[in-house]
């Protein structure tokens, strides 16, 4: 049992990095505008399908398709924000939920229309497939790639938010929106950029996730959305550190649960989530 622990920890970590990419955008936008966006996984699905098209139909290399997936998610995020979501910032939670569920429904049907309901795949290049031995244990190359890519992006994100002017604006808007407006920060514009960034990261996550959790037209309202919401709710709104910790814990718990207690299914995850939310409704690192 313990000999497998390292493998489970590592796979769980890689999975957690993926969940972090998928959910960090939602966490920041929720913290900033209190906008409950249940259509967040639509961005992931768009990134995934974009990669599938580019790799399978146009023969792009897998790694070149990843920035395109980011762009696809970001563009869709901007379009939706400009056309629809910005009218809803003052609406009730329920209205926000309903409209974004509606968008997710529409996207599911659209994906089914263009790509059929069959699961899609985009094979990564040969150098990302297989596994290698290290200290007598075997590691999947793709998982290592996933973990490395996740850590790299997290690093960039933390740098952008902690060290740049844009990051300072975002933090100010999350902490106190009215005060930020009073200081002359264009919160709406900052929010649009943040929304695009979050959508792009989700699109990238969706592209990277094809090999791990697959890609189906129902992705926008699948269990992935539940996991993303768990990461956001448990980590605390607007907290990148919280999302990171929550995503890693969730990834490891889920992988370990599937490995050691397969008969429990996702029961354990939901139980932990409900317990955590009852203990700290604002999340582990939530401030408000």
């Amino acid at each position, binding site marked *: 049992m313990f000999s497998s622990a390292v493998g489970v920890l590592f796979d769980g970590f890689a999975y957690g990095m993926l969940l972090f990419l998928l959910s960090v955008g939602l966490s920041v936008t*929720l913290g900033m505008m*209190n906008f*409950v966006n249940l259509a967040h996984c639509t961005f992931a699905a768009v990134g995934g399908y974009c990669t599938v098209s580019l790799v399978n139909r146009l023969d792009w290399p897998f790694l070149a398709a990843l920035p395109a997936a980011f762009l696809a998610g970001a563009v869709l995020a901007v379009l939706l924000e400009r056309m*629809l979501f910005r*009218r809803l910032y003052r*609406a009730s*939670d*329920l*209205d926000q*939920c*309903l*409209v974004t*569920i*509606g*968008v*997710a*429904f*529409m*996207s*599911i*049907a*659209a994906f*089914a*229309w263009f790509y059929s*309901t069959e699961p899609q795949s985009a094979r990564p290049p040969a150098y990302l497939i297989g596994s290698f031995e290290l200290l007598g244990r075997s590691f999947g190359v793709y998982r290592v790639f996933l973990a490395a890519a996740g850590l790299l992006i997290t690093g960039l994100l933390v740098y952008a938010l902690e060290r740049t002017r844009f990051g300072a604006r975002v933090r100010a808007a999350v902490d106190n929106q009215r005060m930020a407006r009073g200081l002359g920060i264009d919160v709406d514009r900052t929010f649009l950029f943040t929304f695009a960034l979050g959508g792009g990261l989700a699109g990238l996550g969706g592209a990277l996730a094809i090999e791990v959790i697959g890609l189906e037209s129902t992705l926008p*309202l699948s269990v992935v959305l*539940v996991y993303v*919401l*768990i990461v*956001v*709710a448990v980590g605390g*709104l607007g907290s990148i550190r919280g999302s990171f910790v929550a995503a890693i814990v969730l990834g490891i718990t889920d992988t370990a649960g599937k490995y050691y207690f397969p*008969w*429990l*299914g*996702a*029961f354990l995850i*939901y*139980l932990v*989530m*409900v317990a955590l*939310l*009852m203990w700290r*409704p*604002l999340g582990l690192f939530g401030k408000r």
Partner: protein
Amino acid sequence: MANANTRWLEVIFWLGTLLPFVLAPNYLSLASQIAITALFALSLDLILGYAGIVSLGHAAFFGVGAYVAGLIAKHWWTEPLSGLLLAGLLAGIAGYALSHIVVRFRHLALIMLTMGFGLLLHEAANSASALTGGADGLQGFKVPGVLGFNFDMFGRTAYAYALAVLFLSFLVCRRVIHSPFGLALRGIRENATRMPAIGAPSLAHLRKAYTIAAVMAGLAGAALTHTTSTVSLETLSFGRSADVLVILILGGAGRLYGGLIGAILYMVARDQFSGVNPQYWYFWIGLLLVAVVMFLPNGVLGGLSALYKKRQ
């Protein structure tokens, strides 16, 4: 609300529910599905429309009712009325237990918790396949009939049974809404902190409303079990919770007939459209949902009543 002007409309509506027996005898099984869904939507209306509790996991109580009724019919007896009452009772107990947790939360935590409890129950029923049949659902029982009438293949008895359960629950719900308690619920929806100041205990009232809604959802689930003689895992699914929310919003939340009208529109439309291309049904539902929230904030009924007021 219940003035002479609208009372004759109500009478006409309920007389209209008898029309399927004469006009559409081939669609009676659809009609009983509609009646059951309407009851489920009505129960959500009580907590969402009147008390303001957003729930994305209301199917939990529907599923509890369905499984309790199914287990009773499979292992003990097949008389439906006692099974119906027991299912309502157990769903109510589950609702009462959960209400202590649910009413304390707001915003995202509330949405996540209701969804979390729904998913938890779904997974539990999926895992405990020895008891519930797991993903295959609970099968192998047959409810012969109710009060001496057999469930026939045309669904006459089934529709009569579902309609009777809906009508009686509706009367109770109507009474609750028009009572001082119902008024207090609407007050809590508008401002939960101000109500205790005029002597209405917010949390206790919300718990009561949540429990009543759970009983009604349980009755709806049990009625589905009795009329179809099977329980599927889908009764507990997130999809069912989302569907009933859509139905209620479409019809108009916070109105007694909102869930009923929504159920009729939604189920009839789904029956018509899914024959053409089932995959794309959700596109139109999504579009409708966005349109209703953006342009018709109080649903179809709200739009109609606004139109009516304008003309006067």
